[in-house]
């Protein structure tokens, strides 16, 4: 009898939430032209939100822009080397999702509306 391999389910770690106080800072390198490079520093915590694929609307809930950006001003690679490398399983083939699904911060208070 042929061996039947699972094609609808895979072994993976449970989802994870992550809590830490100060929002992350992430830099991004932009190369607009082959002769020169411009480095664009963008704080990932305040980047444009992802879009809900079902509704087409940004995944942006609640109030914002009540105060300045409160994320860290320096980073040592935690987002790319830490968060994005924490995968659901050790398999490196396609379809391996990130283990951490939500990052939740504090630090930014916002001021009350008049």
């Amino acid at each position, binding site marked *: 009898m042929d061996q039947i391999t699972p*094609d*609808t*389910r*895979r*072994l*993976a*770690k*449970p*989802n*994870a*939430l*992550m*809590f*830490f*106080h*100060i*929002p*992350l*800072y992430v830099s991004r390198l932009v190369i607009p032209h082959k002769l020169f490079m411009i480095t664009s520093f963008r704080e990932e915590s305040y980047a444009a939100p992802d879009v809900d694929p079902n509704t087409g609307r940004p995944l942006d809930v609640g109030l914002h822009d009540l105060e300045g950006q409160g*994320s*860290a*001003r*320096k*980073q*040592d*690679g*935690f987002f790319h*080397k*830490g*968060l994005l*490398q*924490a995968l*659901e*399983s050790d398999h490196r083939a396609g*379809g391996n999702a990130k*283990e*951490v699904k939500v990052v*939740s*911060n*504090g*630090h930014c*208070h916002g*001021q*009350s509306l*008049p």
Partner: protein
Amino acid sequence: MQIADLHFSVSSGVCRDTPLAPCTGSDNLTSTLLSRMLDAEQPDLVVFSGDQLNGQGTAWDARSVLAKFARSVTERGIPWAAVFGNHDDEDGDTRESQIKYMQGLPYSLVQAGPKDIHGVGNYLLKVMSADSLVVLNLMAVSSQWFAVGLIVFFHRSKTHLLTLYFLDSGSYSKGFLNWFGLFVPTEYDWIHQVSAPASPHWHDV
């Protein structure tokens, strides 16, 4: 439920950034609000995400502030966890000593975390399924008197459903170290090491 930036003081607190006027005893007002929200939401777990203490010269007796910040939660018997913010150790009491105080409070799940990881309070918690006791095996045995007995094994089939990571994102610069929101390799190496699947489960593709 996440509770962020309580900024409690030794005193009853000074109101700020609120249209409420007059406003006095901000910590008491905050606790009242927390109680209402906890009764409305009835969470299974509360996470305090830093700056439980206001610092800035107002939290000079950390133990007394820590004794009151979680009272609304502990009075309801709700387990809770916490991470540090940038103000928590501003007025003298170290993060290490505050962890010990918090661990002494009721329903606290706070951990100090590994000492070789940058910061204090880097730990993880696992949310398990609420399975009841399950009968696993039934075994019939015959004794020397040819009686047949049953040995019933019970065990909990708890499944690891969710992982919660808690990390210390640092505080303001002290001396030459600028630790404000800066994670260093010990922390992101740690989340890879510690997240080995003890009991992984199946995901639908």
